[in-house]
């Protein structure tokens, strides 16, 4: 291994079994074969087994941040577990230098009946620290967790935030050569998150390599220096992170009608038809218009029209509001009519999204219409982030 390399993944394959009963049988026969000194021939697929990772090779160098992205089930977590030595490859080899730290599940082995102080010792031991190391770093761990008097209370009386804080505090103090991070930084309050990133950054300066798995492209683009894009167990490598992210995004909702979801377009006494949109792909500042015809057998007064724009692959809304937010009450009258929704001057970019419309009767007693359509907010060069704001520069 080159001295700058902290982890080396050489043509690694990993298989899983689809059914529990077979998995049990295979497990027993593998143990029996090994016990008799025979190879378990893990490189061959048996019935109902499939490859979760197929021939992954990669290197992690000192001080760098390697991002791993990919859709659910692509093998991200499996790869992390292999790097951590929890799962072993069925084919190929992984070499890791020094101690591997993991922010995968914090607070592993915490016993709810024991106090925070007692749990620090146990957790630290599980994470591989020696007695002297814990003694040395104990004060620093307590300070980092910053949970005050609760350090002497049983962990079961902790809020989930405090639990995470304590778990994190121990994890970041084990001084590994490589740190595996799996989405967990999304927990805890923002101040504490910042503190964690700050600590990770400090460790990185001293040569800590980080492998970061996340669905949050913002986290990836701001932290990762190189990228592995996993898909169906196969990997693609990107030296340019932005390019990798773009490639990843492409996998979601191509702009086609098959992405259109319609749960309902009629209520008990009303029917919507002929929905039309002006466009599906937007530059920042453009407007979106949705037009629909309806036929009502009764009056619907003061309906609630809920409009949202939300990300197609991450959780969360870019925007959501009902007509009440704009103090524009709408009544739908008996007979035929036409409804038009204008979303003006949309300041979004670099995103594939869905526009969601739902219309409810007064008091949300009846769902009249539910419809979502995939749209694209085009990329803007030299800008990341989903909001592209109007910014003016003046040299005065």
């Amino acid at each position: 291994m080159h001295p700058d390399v902290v982890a080396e993944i050489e043509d690694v394959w990993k298989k899983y079994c689809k059914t529990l009963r077979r998995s049990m049988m295979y497990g027993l026969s593998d143990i029996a074969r090994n016990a008799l000194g025979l190879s378990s021939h893990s490189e061959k697929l048996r019935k109902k087994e499939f490859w979760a990772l197929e021939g992954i090779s990669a290197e992690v160098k000192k001080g760098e941040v390697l991002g791993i992205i990919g859709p659910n089930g692509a093998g991200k977590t499996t790869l992390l577990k292999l790097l951590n030595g929890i799962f072993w490859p069925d084919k190929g080899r992984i070499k890791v230098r020094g101690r591997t730290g993991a922010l995968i599940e914090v607070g592993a082995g915490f016993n709810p009946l024991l106090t925070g102080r007692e749990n620090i010792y146990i957790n630290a031991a599980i994470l591989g620290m020696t007695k002297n190391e814990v003694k040395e770093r104990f004060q620093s761990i307590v300070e980092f967790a910053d949970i005050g008097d609760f350090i002497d209370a049983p962990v079961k009386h902790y809020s989930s935030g405090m639990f995470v804080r304590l778990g994190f505090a121990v994890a970041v103090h084990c001084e590994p050569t490589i740190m595996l991070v799996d989405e967990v930084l999304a927990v805890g309050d923002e101040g504490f998150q910042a503190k964690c990133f700050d600590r990770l950054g400090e460790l990185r300066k001293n040569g800590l390599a980080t492998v970061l798995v996340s669905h949050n492209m913002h986290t990836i683009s701001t932290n990762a220096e190189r990228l592995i894009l996993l898909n169906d167990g196969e990997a693609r490598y990107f030296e340019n992170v932005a390019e990798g992210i773009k490639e990843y995004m492409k996998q979601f909702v191509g702009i086609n009608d098959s992405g259109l979801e319609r749960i309902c377009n009629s209520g008990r006494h009303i029917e919507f038809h002929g929905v039309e949109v002006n466009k599906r792909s937007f530059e920042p500042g453009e407007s979106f218009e949705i037009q629909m015809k309806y036929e009502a057998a009764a009056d619907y007064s003061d309906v609630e029209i809920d409009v949202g724009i939300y990300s197609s692959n991450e959780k969360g809304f870019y925007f959501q509001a009902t007509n009440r937010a704009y103090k524009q009450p709408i009544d739908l009258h008996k007979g035929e009519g036409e409804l038009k929704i204008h979303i003006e001057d949309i300041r979004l970019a670099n995103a594939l999204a869905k526009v969601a419309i739902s219309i409810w009767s007064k008091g949300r007693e009846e769902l009249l219409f539910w419809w979502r359509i995939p749209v694209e907010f085009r990329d803007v060069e030299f800008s990341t982030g989903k909001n592209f704001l109007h910014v003016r520069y003046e040299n005065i």
Partner: protein
Amino acid sequence: MKVNNKTIFSYEPDNSLKRGYIRMLGEITGEIKKNHWLTYQLAKRDFLKLYKQSFIGVFWALLIPLISVGTFVLLNNSGVFNMGDIDVPYAIFAVIGIALWQLFSAGLVATSKSLVDAGSMITKVNFSKKSLVIAAYAQCLVPFFTQVVFAAILFACYRIIPDLAVLLVPLAIMPMILFTMGLGFILALLNGIARDIGNVIAVLITFLMFLTPVLYAKPDGGLLASISRYNPLYYLISAPRDLVIKGSIDAWRGFLVAAIISVVIFFAGIVTFHMTETRIAERV
């Protein structure tokens, strides 16, 4: 082995197998030595988990076997069962028997459950699973020692002074500990894959206890006598008990064979565990 930034870990299929048994034994010893503090912490955690949220705490370890001993003393005194020829008061005989039996029964139950009980810890953190099994075994030492204390009190009550050979007892219980841990290592793996094992053990232990002369003396003839002849547990229990009660081991030949079997089982168990523990996380 001390982990520093230069240690290189290598994960590949059949890793240990390729290195051979001699190096494997070295690896195992190194791993256990390196992780002794972890083992201690895990044992402490298990111990506290059992006794912390309870009013009389560790006294349960004394009380539960006491009740079963009490039942047998009662049965003995009322003459329902013939416990055989015993040189000391029956209570002493029974308490020592139960204490030694616990080294096997409680130890086997705890070790075989250890991997399954650790649950998500195994699938989320990489740490020595041998420590987990060893720490689980330590759980049975607590009831053992509380009963040793109880036995000592009984000796005082009956004004009996045990033979000096009692000092050899720590050595004489070693085979039992090795025997149980060897089985425990294998059963922990198997239980990790198929939960049936745990249930089988629970049933089998009760059955074995009545089949083994723990609470009665080995009969001179009949089916039980011939079973006991080939039951290593009989020798592993009677030898240390003989040392306490009589000052010498009656069936020392049998004990020697049983001790050799125990050592073989221990090594077979821990080597099998070492070779296959890397496959267990994905199946637990």
